[in-house]
């Protein structure tokens, strides 16, 4: 296979002699998979990228949030929701009061140790894709509740995407955090699970048939 005219050289680490660290190993040339397959992967990658962008655009503009309100930050959440600041302008229109219908978990307020299993359960009940916003310093880092009862940041329990500081944060800060989260959603890779799996299967069969033809099997 290495002397095939349409194959690309790729770099592979040479087999080291003795106990050489991986960072000091020398790269050597080796010939691998034919070019045609690489173009197919490129085209599928292009399609996937565009699809991901479209999905990201759709998802970032229709964030259904679940407000997990535990403390005084809830007042600022209400302010951000209501007409003066109107978080609905950014597509975060409907607060869903069940985590099963929500995309964004807003942790609004202090999380104490006794409450952390509840937060974990709420997060587990949300369907993918899901994001988490820590609303206020208490949810971000424990705030000034540096004591025996308070979890020092909700990220000790569940992963957090965006942290909004403030005690409580101004509604403008919340909107800013939402914009940052929207940028994150737009730029991250969205897997359309079924389409991707179908493409993978198709790719595998094509690879096999190409290789079969080329190698005469």
């Amino acid at each position, binding site marked *: 296979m290495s002397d095939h005219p349409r194959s690309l050289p790729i770099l592979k680490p040479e087999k080291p002699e003795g106990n050489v660290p991986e960072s000091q190993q020398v790269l050597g040339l080796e010939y691998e998979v034919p070019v045609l397959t690489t173009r197919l992967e490129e085209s599928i990658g292009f399609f996937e990228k565009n699809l991901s962008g479209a999905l990201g655009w759709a998802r970032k503009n229709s964030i259904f949030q679940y407000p997990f309100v535990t403390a005084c930050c809830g007042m600022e959440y209400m302010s951000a929701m209501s007409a003066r600041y109107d978080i609905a302008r950014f597509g975060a229109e409907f607060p869903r009061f069940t985590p099963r219908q929500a995309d964004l978990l807003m942790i609004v307020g202090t999380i104490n140790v006794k409450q*952390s*299993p509840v937060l974990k*359960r709420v997060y587990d009940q949300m369907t993918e894709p899901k994001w988490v916003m820590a609303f206020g310093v208490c949810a971000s880092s424990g705030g000034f509740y540096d004591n*025996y009862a308070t979890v*020092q940041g909700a990220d000790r*329990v569940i992963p957090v995407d965006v942290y909004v500081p403030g005690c409580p944060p101004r509604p403008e800060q919340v909107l800013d955090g939402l914009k940052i989260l929207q940028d994150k959603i737009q730029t991250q890779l969205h897997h359309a699970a079924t389409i991707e799996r179908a493409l993978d299967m198709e790719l595998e069969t094509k690879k096999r048939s190409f290789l079969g033809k080329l190698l005469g099997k």
Partner: protein
Amino acid sequence: MSQALVELVREKFPEAVTSWHSHRGDEVITVRRENLVEVIRFLRNDPQTDMKLLRQIAGVDLLTFKSEMTGGGALASIEVPEYDLRKKPHVEPRYYVAYNLYSLTKHHALRVRVDLRSDDVKLPSITSLYRTADWWERYVYDMFGFEFTGHPNLTRLLMYPEFQGHPLRKDYPVRKRQPLVPELDFPDLIRGPGPGPGGAGVPMSQTHVGRHNVDPDAYD
């Protein structure tokens, strides 16, 4: 008005009341632990006192109070993580419990104090007199670890069962953090008992929180 109240209790129980004073208009009496229940029963049932409302039960730790070596608030600093009782002096009796009583008909209040030595933190429960004493005593037990003998269900009220120690004691380290805990089992009232130990479906104790991904030592 309240002065007469103190006189009344002293006349009725000359042996039980060990000291009394007035703190910013609030009358305070200190009673012996053995006579606590009968004094409070008298205050509740006597028509002259008629104190039907138990406003609060509070625990107090005097570990750093009036102590020359530490002074109040020294333990709040990060540099003193633990208070070594063997090396540093502290006052005895170290604790007291305060019962704040009020009369809704006579409009007078009285605070009843019971001193507790640090080696013997037991005192009688007054749940037979006041229903509200149930949760107040659980609260004081949770925060200070005082044992109220005769309480029907002396468990933690605010903290979770896995919590170690009593956080409002002054020798509880300020910066001490304890690991996160799994969700509690609770019975499913709608679907009834199921295959799991805690109720229907998957037992809640299997949903561990944080045990895998949170290092408890990372707090300090």
